[in-house]
């Protein structure tokens, strides 16, 4: 489901579209500027900062990650696209490894 960041680029060096979706096996709640997430599978706990929370909240499975970063991170937090994408890739890969975020090269529907 998740893939190393260097594999997120095509052979031509173009970034592949990736889609992210919040897992249904987690409990999440916003506290101040942060989002706390607990896995219902193993009770592991995660805290997302404001920018990570923006990505998490927009992870609907149908909006490409690049679009989320541009619209929810770069626009609101005054950060360059490349830097924001690097951070976003690292974040989603990390969350995917723990099963709390689904990542795919194609839109993710309810059946996933």
């Amino acid at each position, binding site marked *: 489901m998740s893939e190393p960041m260097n594999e997120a680029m095509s052979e031509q060096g173009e970034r592949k579209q990736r889609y992210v979706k919040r897992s249904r*096996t987690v*409990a999440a709640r916003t*506290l*101040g500027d942060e989002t*706390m997430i*607990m896995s*219902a599978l*193993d009770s592991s706990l995660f805290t997302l900062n404001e920018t990570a929370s923006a990505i998490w909240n927009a992870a609907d499975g149908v909006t490409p990650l690049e679009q989320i970063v541009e619209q929810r991170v770069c626009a609101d937090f005054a950060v360059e696209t490349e830097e924001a994408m690097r951070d976003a890739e690292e974040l989603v890969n990390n969350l995917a490894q723990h099963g709390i975020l689904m990542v795919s090269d194609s839109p993710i529907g309810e059946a996933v």
Partner: protein
Amino acid sequence: MTATAERLTADIGIGGMTVRLHVPDEAFLRMVEDRYAGFPGSGDDAECDFDIELLPERPTEIDSVGMADRDAEMDPDEDVRVWREGEMWNLTRGDFCAEWNPAERRGRIRQSMNPYSVDCVLRIVHTLALARNGGGFLVHAASAIRNGKAFLFSGVSGAGKTTISRLAPGDATLLTDEISYVRRAGEGYVAYGTPFAGELAEPGANVQAPIDTLFLLAQGPENRITEIASPSEAARALLRNILFFAHDAELVNRVFRAALDFVQRVPVKRLTFMPDERVWELIE
């Protein structure tokens, strides 16, 4: 606790919830009466009835019933395991195995003649019931009432729960030195006394009061109270100390939400203290 010798039942009321135990003999009844003397229940509205069966030193009979099969496999060193099969909750540890069906309010405990097994079952049943009903939890924390307000002192083993309990002044009513019972009430939370004691080996008083503050305990060179940096830090600290045994998605979700709701309604602060009764001058 109320006990009727003819029927060999004992009703134990903790946190406003009654558990009725159908005990196997007089000796077991006396043991339970002694341990939970300050916590009488109301048998008419017991949340659950448990039949207790005494196990021999090592089970020898194996029948086709799943529970008996598990008896035969009981490992004395096994940790607590809690899982659900349909409506039935299964609870096991090295010294007992139990079943509880909340819908039918019935359960069964198989254990040897000791007070610790049923005590563990009670803790688990209360954590499950509080999570099912929403808005409450058991937490590793000492608690006490002072001036009509309850204060919780939370921390892992060695953090100082028993120490701060021992230092409590005469006008403080100790609810527990080990496991605090927390329930949502209106817009806030209430702490109840529990019989679940730690090193103090004394049950708490069977009273309740609105929770004023949750203190995260730390031992240091002086007595002082400091603010917690963020609600999420408070929530993380609380979640680390909440008792929860079952890896059940729905219940994990409920406990998580209860903990986060708690830190948004109740002040959470860090209490650094040295083993000195003057720490209680900060708590009133």
